[in-house]
C-alpha cells in the first residue's frame, strides 16, 4: 500500500500542534487543539483508505474506497457539533468570570446603595461614580 508522504507530513504537523495546544491552560487554545487533532485524525483515515482512484459510481478504472470518506464525513459532523458546544461553554465561563468581577467590586456596590438610584449606566461606569464627591461609602 502506497501512502502520500505529503498527507502523512501534514497529519504529523497537525497532531503535533494539536497536542501542544491541548496542553495549554487557556480553554480557547484547547478548543483549537481539539480541532487540529480532529482534522489530523480525518487525514489519518484518508491516508489509510488506500490508493486514490476514480469516483466509485461514475468513474472508469480502479475506483477509490468510499467507506473511509463516509467515516470522515460523520467524524467531521461530530467534531463540528462538539466544537460549537465547547465554544458556548467558553463564552459562558467568560461571562461568569465577568459577573464575578462586578459582584466583588465593593466600591460599585457602595455607590449602588448610595443616594443615586442604581441604573445600568451607573453600574457600568465605575470610575466616574467612584471619584464623584458626596458618594456615601
Amino acid at each position, binding site marked *: 500500500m502506497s501512502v502520500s508522504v505529503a498527507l502523512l507530513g501534514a497529519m504529523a504537523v497537525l497532531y503535533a500542534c494539536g497536542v501542544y495546544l491541548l496542553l495549554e491552560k487557556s*480553554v480557547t487554545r484547547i478548543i483549537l487543539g*481539539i480541532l487540529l487533532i480532529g482534522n489530523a485524525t480525518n487525514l*489519518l483515515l484518508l491516508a489509510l483508505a*488506500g490508493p486514490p482512484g476514480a469516483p466509485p459510481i461514475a468513474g472508469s478504472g480502479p475506483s477509490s474506497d468510499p*467507506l*473511509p470518506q463516509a*467515516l470522515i464525513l460523520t467524524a467531521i459532523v*461530530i467534531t463540528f457539533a*462538539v466544537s460549537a458546544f465547547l465554544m458556548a461553554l467558553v463564552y*459562558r465561563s467568560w461571562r461568569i468570570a465577568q459577573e464575578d468581577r462586578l459582584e466583588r467590586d465593593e466600591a460599585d456596590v457602595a455607590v449602588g446603595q448610595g443616594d443615586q438610584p442604581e441604573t445600568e449606566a451607573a453600574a457600568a461606569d465605575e470610575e466616574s461614580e467612584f471619584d464623584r464627591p458626596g458618594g456615601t461609602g
Partner: protein
Amino acid sequence: MTALVPLVVILPILGAALALLASARPRLQRTIAAVALTAVLGLGIALTAAVADGSMLVMPVGGWPVPFGIVLVVDRLSALLLTVSAAVLLAVLVFSIGQGIADGDDREAPVSIFYPTYLVLAAGVFDAFIAGDLFNLYVGFEILLVSSYVLITVGGTEPRIRAGTTYIVVSLVSSTLFLAAVGAIYAATGTVNMAQIAQRVAVLPEGVQVLLHVMLLTAFGIKAAVFPLSFWLPDSYPTAIAPVTAVFAGLLTKVGVYAILRTETTLFPGPELNPLLLVVAMLTMLVGVLGAIAQADIKRMLSFTLVSHIGYLIMGVGLGTAAGTAAAIFYTVHHIVVQTTLFLTAGLIERRAGTTTITRLGGLLAASPALGALYLLPALNLGGIPPFSGFLGKLGLLEAGAAARDPLTYVVVGVATLTSLLTLYPLVRVWNVSFWRPAKQVAEGSRLTDELHEDPFRPQTTGTRALTRPMVASTAGMVALGLAITVFAGPLYGYAEQAGTTLQDWPVYVQGVLGR
C-alpha cells in the same frame, strides 16, 4: 422479533424530538420521556426472552447485506444490559421529575432541554449495546457523550462549567483515539464489521495485532475509568445534579466496560494482554478504594468506589475464562443498579440535610429512618455483605480467579478481597457519622473524620429542600431492584454464565452475524 431491534434506538430519539417540540409544556414532555423509556424497557424484556435460548437477533439496517451495511446485533449480553439500563434510566427519570416538580423550575430554559437530552443519552447507550459494527459503536459513544456534555453542565454554574470542561476534553481525546483505532483496523482488515474483524485479525502480524488492541483498550479504558486513566471521574461527576451523577455513574462507565468485554472476547480473543488487564484491574481496585477512604464528601467518596469497582469488572474480563466473563457480566448488572441507587440516596441526603460532607452531617437516622434504610441496604450490598448480590458477584469473581491457578491471579484475588474489606470502611463510616451520631454532637467532631479535609473549591452547604414522593419512591424502587437481583440471583447468574460461555467462543458470534 428482529424488526423490533432498531426500535430500541429509534423510540428514544423520536421521543427526544417530540419532547423538544413540546418544550413549552413540561407535563407533556415528562409523559413523552416516561413513555419512551417504558417502551424500551418492555422491548428489552422481550428481547432478553427471545435470545435466552442462545439465538442471536441480527438486523441489517437499510436492507444492505450483512458485511456491507450497518448491522445491529442482539445477543444475551446485549439484551441483558439493555434491559437493566432501561430500568435504571426510567427510575432516574422519575427521580428527576420529582426533583423538577419540587424545585418549581418547570419553565426555566435548562429544564426544557433536560428531558430531550436525557432521551438522546439513552439512545446512545442503547445503540452502543446493540452495535455490531465498530464505527456504529463509535457513533453510539458519541451520541451518549455529546448529550452527557450537555447534562453535566446543565445550569451553567461555575463549578459545573469547570468540571464539565475537564470531562469534555478528556472524553474528546478518548474519542479521537477510538476513531484513529477504527481507521487503523479498517486499513489492516478491510472491514469495520465486528464479526468480520474477528475472522481476519488472526492472520495479521503479531505486532500489528497488539498495536490495534492497545489503541482500542486505551480509548475504552478512558471511558471506563480504569486506573491510570481514571483521574477525570471523581473531579467531574460529583458536581452535576443528583440524577445526572446517578445515571452517569451507573451507565456511562459500564458502556466502556462493555466495549472492553467485546474487544477481549470477539475482536481480539487472544490472551496476550490478559496479564496487563489483571495488573491494571488490581491497581484500579486499590487506588480507587484508598481514594474513597480519604474523602469527606459522600458523592466524591462514591465516585472513588465506582472507580474501585470498575477494577472488579476488568478483573473478570482479564481472566479470559468463561467463569470470569460470567462473573463480570453478573457483577456489571449488580453494579449498575447499586451504584445508581447510592448516588440517588446521596441526592436525597443532600436535599434533606443541605450537605453531603460527612463532617457536617449527623442525626439523619433520627430525622428520617426511611432514608437510613435507603442508604444502608445498597451500601451493604456494594460492600459485599452476604447474602446480597454484591457478595455473590464477588464470590463468583474470586472463584473464577482462584480456578485460573496462576500466581498473578492469586495475587489479584488477594487484592480483590482486601479491597472488598476496605470498601466497607468508608461506607460504614458514613453510616456511623451521618446517621448514628446524634445531631448535637456534630460540632464536637469525631475520631473517624479527624483526618478528613473538606473540599475547599465547592460550597459545603446548599440549604435544605423538601423530599418529594417521586424521588423517594424511585430510590426505593431502585433499592428493591437491587434486592430482586439478590433474590433471583440463581436464574440471573445462570443467564450470565450462558452469556459468558458463548462470548468466550467467538466463532459462535461470527456464525450468528455472518451466517457462515
